[in-house]
């Protein structure tokens, strides 16, 4: 477990004081993928950099496992850093070294013998899917491949924690997805804790178990990704949720739907984790004598299941429709709202 207590960082530049991280308290469980999201300037980068003390904290404590990071002397800090991998937005590879030599670098720092290094590097190259590119220089790789090298390098000394600062922000959506899949894969295979900084909600949605929303150096909201998605409290959080789910213009279109589809009953279904929408719809169609017409909807997949809403029209005789709606309310975890007509 990583516990962060009252962590703060104040920068002083030109006699002006900037509080980048403000009395931040947080705990992160072992083996989870923890996301921190916030707009530019929220203090996210400063926050991760405080965790391995690339930035010296102005106050507060960081404890990883049994080690109190914030009180280590410089030698102990250096050794501890070998247990904390880090990947960067701009990859930060050494252009003068090949893929394999870049990955070997942290092993050289840790004083691993040459034969051991070779074996380790080969395993890492296979793990991140770069076999055949060992001898390439970073300039000969695509962004996604460079980040794979970055990830392999960060994993070289078998860290317990992986820090990711905007690791996918310089990549296109497809490459982003493949890197995120790799991170989930690594999290499951190696059981390491991942702390991931981003300003993109879909990154959080796709791989995080828990999320903290950061604004002006503070955590303004945190919780399970699904809870934060379904019940965002703060305005910033709502805006981030809209990045993935679209704006809440459904209520305007509800009147339009009610006018257009006069038959049967129109219901809105809220999916919050676990149950997948396909299964519910096909179950309803099989069990009840009704027609189901999907009118509008938006569903997103998170690590804890599907989340979103679906507006459907139920047609058939009134008794069957009522049976179907009570089935939804009583037998499933899907929340339902009914509208007019029926």
């Amino acid at each position, binding site marked *: 477990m990583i516990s962060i207590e009252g962590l703060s960082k104040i920068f002083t530049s030109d006699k002006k004081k900037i509080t980048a991280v403000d009395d931040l308290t947080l705990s992160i469980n072992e083996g989870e993928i923890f996301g921190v999201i916030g707009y530019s300037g929220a203090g996210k980068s400063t926050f991760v950099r405080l965790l391995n003390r690339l930035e010296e904290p102005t106050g507060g404590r960081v404890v990883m496992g049994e080690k109190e990071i914030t009180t280590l002397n410089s030698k102990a800090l250096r050794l501890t850093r070998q247990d904390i991998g880090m990947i*960067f937005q701009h990859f930060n590879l*050494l252009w003068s070294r090949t893929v394999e030599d870049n990955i070997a670098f942290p092993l050289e720092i840790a004083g691993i013998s040459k034969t051991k290094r070779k074996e380790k590097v080969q395993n890492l190259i296979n793990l991140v899917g770069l076999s055949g590119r060992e001898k390439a220089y970073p*300039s000969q790789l695509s962004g996604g491949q460079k980040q794979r090298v970055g990830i392999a390098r960060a994993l070289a000394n078998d860290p317990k924690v992986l820090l990711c600062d905007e690791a996918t922000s310089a990549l296109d959506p497809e490459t982003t997805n493949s890197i995120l899949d790799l991170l989930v894969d690594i999290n499951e295979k190696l059981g390491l804790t991942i702390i991931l900084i981003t300003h993109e909600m879909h990154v959080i949605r796709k791989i995080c178990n828990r999320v903290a929303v950061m604004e002006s150096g503070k955590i303004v909201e945190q919780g399970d990704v699904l809870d934060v998605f379904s019940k965002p409290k703060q305005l910033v959080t709502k805006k981030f949720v809209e990045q993935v789910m679209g704006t809440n213009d459904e209520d305007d279109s509800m009147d339009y739907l009610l006018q257009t589809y006069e038959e049967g009953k129109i219901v809105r279904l809220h999916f919050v984790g676990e149950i997948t929408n396909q299964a519910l719809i096909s179950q309803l169609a099989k069990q009840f004598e009704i027609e189901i017409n999907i009118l509008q909807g938006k569903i997103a997949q998170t690590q804890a299941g599907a989340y979103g809403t679906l507006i459907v029209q139920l047609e058939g005789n009134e008794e069957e429709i009522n049976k179907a709606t009570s089935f939804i309310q009583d037998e499933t975890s899907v929340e339902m709202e009914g509208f007019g007509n029926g």
Partner: protein
Amino acid sequence: MGDFFSNLDTQDLIEATYETFYMTIVSLAGTLILGIMLGLLLYMTDKDGIWQNKYLNLITAAVVNVFRAIPFIILILLLFPFTNLLVGTLRGPTAALPALIIASAPFYGRLVEIALKEVDKGVIEAAKSMGAKTRTIIFKVLLPESMPALVSGLTVTAIALIGYTAMAGAIGAGGLGNYAYYFGFQRRDWDIVLVSTVLIVIIVFLFQFIGDYITKKLDKR
């Protein structure tokens, strides 16, 4: 035509060429070591550097600037006592070495500093995040990552050095400059001046060519 080159003595010419090479290469080696040390000191003690130290930085910068400001010909004269103490003579190619190194090391030091400043801060930070020692950062990150610029800077310095050797030659240090001045210019034997000049130009081209070639080979960006 045959008469024009009548004053040339092949043996003397070879000797002078050898001395020019000797002075250039030995002083280049000294410049390389001293220049890298100065450049690293300037870079590391600078603001936000690993050894950030305002005073040390100011002192180093002052020393570098003073030695760069003194014209070479005056520097040689000023260094006479020091040279005498160090090599026991004021004449010949070896006597020129201290002045050559002291004149070009600060120049190269500045080029080294510029080269180091071009190294991506992110890469240094990545090395720190892996737990690298300062020594590792210097030898495995800073120097390799700035290698093309270090070599091209060294090429520029080498060419300036060849010019300095010729100047040093004019006050008795030997080499092609010495040969051209004493045997050519003073005796009005223009063939000697011409051939010496051509040889110096060829040596300059040679260094430039080798330097460019190595720089290109090293640059994997």
